Every structure is written in structure tokens, then in C-alpha cells.
């Protein structure tokens, strides 16, 4: 199966079609900027050529020309065979990952935190009320996967899955969709302050939360989930503020 279209907000903003007649160098500049800004992460696989060309509104010939230039710039690497494709090679730049954070104000970050706490808190409360033994087993599997993940993308994915599963355990399609939308919007940001940090406290939160769901303690589950989101929001706010102190 070909790699899917990027689904996150950054992909939607990044890949809005270019004007008709968009040329290879426009595509090159746009992709190079996206990589330098950290909108496309190191090691990330680009969608298949035909699909990416479609998303950018250019022909595959134009796209190939742009990819060739990006390859010579060292920003894209193409691998052949099974699991192959074009991969992002981000320049070695300590600030790269933090750039997406710069576009968000403290007010916006606080608001995102409030929204996440509302969704995650309610999902946790209802999950504790409605979970079956098999649901708890599934949640534990996802927590275990997160514990075993080392790369930032793997952690982000496992963390998102765990929280989406909790919302699904609440038996609410709406809360699940809300959790999915939130993670696709801010998932990359959540793990940003965790680069190189000890992840044991987050893992402990998850264990406590699953424990409360298993114990059918709705209020405790809600409290833990809200505290967990608040701690993540605090770390993001700290990081956002620190960008000005440098």
C-alpha cells in the first residue's frame, strides 16, 4: 500500500495546491522551507510521488525535478525497494523542532491545554465507568508500547493511540474524534519538551490512570487525566517562554 497522504494540520497548510503552472523551483523552495521550519520532520517519509504531486497541484515530472534538487541540497533522501520512498533529511539544527511552537501564543497554548483537559478528563471518567476487563488489557498493551518506544515519533504515536483508546473505551465516538483531532493538531508539540528527558513520570501517570479505570474509579481517573494534561501543558508553556530567553 502506498504511503498515505499526510493528514495533520501542518500537511493541510503545507500541501495546499500551488497555482497552476507552479514550477519546480517553487516546489523546491516550499519543501525546503517546510523541512527547515520543522514542519516536515527528520526521517519522515513523503507521500508517494503521484500523490504528493497531486497535493501540490503539479505534474509528477515537475515534482521529480524538485526532489532531484532537494536531493542535491541534502534535504531529501530517496531509498529504493520495499519500505523505500523519499525521506526528509533535516539539517542538523538544535532549534528546528521548536520552530512550530514559536507560531503559537501562550494564550493559544493555554487554550489547547484547557480543551485537551476537558476531553481527556471526561473520556477518563466515562472509561472508568464503562471499561470491560478486555478494554483494560488493551490499554495496558498501549501503555507498554509507549514505554518501549524510544524515538520521538514512536512515542508520539503510542501516546496518541493510548489517549484515543481511552476515549474509545468511554464508548463515545464524539470524544474519540475530538481526541483524534486534537492529537493530529498538537501531537508533535506534546512531545517536544520531552526530547532527551526522563519519561518515567508520564509513564507513571498512565499506569495510575489505567489503574483507576480498572478500579472503576471515575472521579480519580478524571483527576489523573486532567493533572496529566496540565503537566504537559505547563512543560509546553515553559518551553515556549524559554524561546524568548535565549
Amino acid at each position, binding site marked *: *500500500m502506498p504511503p498515505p497522504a499526510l493528514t495533520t494540520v501542518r500537511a493541510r497548510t503545507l500541501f495546499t495546491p500551488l497555482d497552476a503552472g507552479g514550477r519546480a523551483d517553487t516546489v523546491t523552495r516550499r519543501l525546503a522551507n517546510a523541512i527547515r521550519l520543522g514542519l516536515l520532520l527528520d526521517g519522515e517519509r513523503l507521500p508517494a510521488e503521484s500523490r504528493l504531486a497531486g497535493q501540490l497541484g503539479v505534474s509528477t515530472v515537475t515534482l521529480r525535478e524538485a526532489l532531484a534538487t532537494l536531493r542535491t541540497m541534502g534535504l531529501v533522501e530517496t531509498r529504493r525497494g520495499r519500505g523505500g520512498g523519499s525521506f526528509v533529511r533535516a539539517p542538523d539544527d538544535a532549534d528546528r523542532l521548536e520552530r512550530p511552537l514559536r507560531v503559537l501564543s501562550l494564550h493559544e497554548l493555554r487554550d489547547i491545554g484547557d480543551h485537551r483537559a476537558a476531553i481527556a478528563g471526561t473520556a477518563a471518567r466515562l472509561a472508568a465507568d*464503562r471499561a470491560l476487563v478486555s478494554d483494560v488489557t488493551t490499554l495496558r498493551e498501549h501503555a507498554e508500547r509507549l514505554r518501549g518506544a524510544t524515538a520521538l515519533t514512536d512515542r508520539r504515536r503510542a501516546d496518541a493511540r493510548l489517549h484515543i483508546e481511552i476515549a474509545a473505551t468511554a464508548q463515545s465516538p464524539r470524544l474519540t474524534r475530538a481526541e483524534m483531532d486534537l492529537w493530529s493538531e498538537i501531537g508533535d508539540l506534546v512531545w517536544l519538551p520531552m526530547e532527551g528527558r526522563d519519561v518515567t513520570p508520564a509513564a507513571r501517570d498512565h499506569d495510575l490512570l489505567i489503574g483507576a479505570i480498572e478500579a472503576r474509579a471515575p472521579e480519580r481517573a478524571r483527576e489523573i487525566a486532567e493533572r496529566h494534561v496540565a503537566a504537559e501543558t505547563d512543560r509546553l508553556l515553559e518551553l515556549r517562554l524559554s524561546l524568548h530567553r535565549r
Partner: protein
Amino acid sequence: MTVHATSGPAVAGEGGYLLADITAAIGRVVRSVTEVGAAMTALAAAARAGRHPLRRADLATLRPLVAQVLARHRGFAAGAGVVLAPDALADAPRCIDWWWADRGSGPGHLEVDLDPASAEFYDYTTTEWYREPARTGQPCVAGPYVDYICTREYTFTVSVPMVDDGRFVGVAGADILAGEVERMLLPRLSLLGRAGRPAVLVSGNGRVIASSTARILPGTVLRSPGSSTAAADGLPWMLVGGPEQAA
């Protein structure tokens, strides 16, 4: 599928009809997806006999059958298709060929991320509807559960195992929205509930599928059911006389 309901006092007669109706409706979908599964198994057998690799492109011949399933169960089955066991195909380590019902512009193909290295990777081998038929060799009615991949709604998935020459090659299945099942059940459930005790249909693990009272909501778990139950034959569901209503 047949039903022999051992009805308790609160679910006599009408309860048997209710179980027979829903079992028959779901049984029809199971039969339809079994046809799709048989066609897929035939493809696998032909590839094995001809010693040629089974490829993604071969699945195209199943599509008319899948479209037929969706047309036949229009308004009931929200999606259908086949999901292959890892490495069942020569040119795709994992494969989902799943279609959702026509929403005005023809059936839509489900696009999911099956690359384990990707951030949105969907590991279907851990789902109940995949794992159960693989384990038991029997059809499965999974759910109700929040299907955040395909329907994005509260859903049941019926699935049947596909086995070629003793080798599990995947499942054929269909999604049924929980709302449609409830629509079918509610008139009779309400009738049953009038006896002064609520009537509740639960899945094998106690999850409420439909209920005659707002006090016991679909999606919640009935942890202390009343004494009278009637089991559906062929479905892991039970009709339960709910706890006595507090006067």
C-alpha cells in the same frame, strides 16, 4: 442461523421474536461476507495451485462481490471488504481492501496507514474482529465499539475467517452501525419493557447494545443483570430482564 431462546418470565414470547429477528438480520450479513471470503480463498487456492504469487491487484476481482454485499444490505452494512493476514500477499506485507457504503458518490475505499514505521500506523491484527476469527476459526460479531478507523461511529464488525489449505489468510467482514441495530430492536424492546422491568440486550461481555430504559444506556456495562436471561443462538448476545426498578 437458528434461535432457541430459553425465555425467562420477563422475556417470554416477544423476547424470542426479538432475538430471532436480530440474529437473522446479522446472519444474513455473515452469509454475504462468507461469499466474499470464499472468493478470496479461491484466489489463494488458485495461486497456490498455479504456483504464482498472490498479489494486491488480484483482489480487484472481489470488488463486485463487495459492492453486492453493500447493495444487498444497504442501510444496514456501512462498510465491507477483506483484510489480509500479514504476508498473505506477495507484494504487500499488510493489506486492507475495505469499502464503505455508497454515500451518493459510489462506494468509497478506506485508506489507512499500514506502514509500521509511520506515525499513523494502524495495526489491525490486534483488533477483536481480526484476532477472534484467526484464533477460533469461527465467524465473529465484534462490538459494539468505537470504530475510529472506518465508520468513525459506534459499530459492530462481523468477520469470517478465510482459510486456504489450513493456512489463515485473513478475514472477510462488514461493519454494521450500532444505531441501525438499535433501530431494529427498539420497538420490540419497548414492548417488553412495559412489564415494569426494563428489557436490555447485552453482548457476551455485558456491554449494553439496546435497552428499553434511559436508566441503562447503550455502551454502558450491565454489571448486575437481573435473573431472567435469554441467549441468542449463533450470536454471543443475551436478552436480560434488568434489575428491579426502584419504586
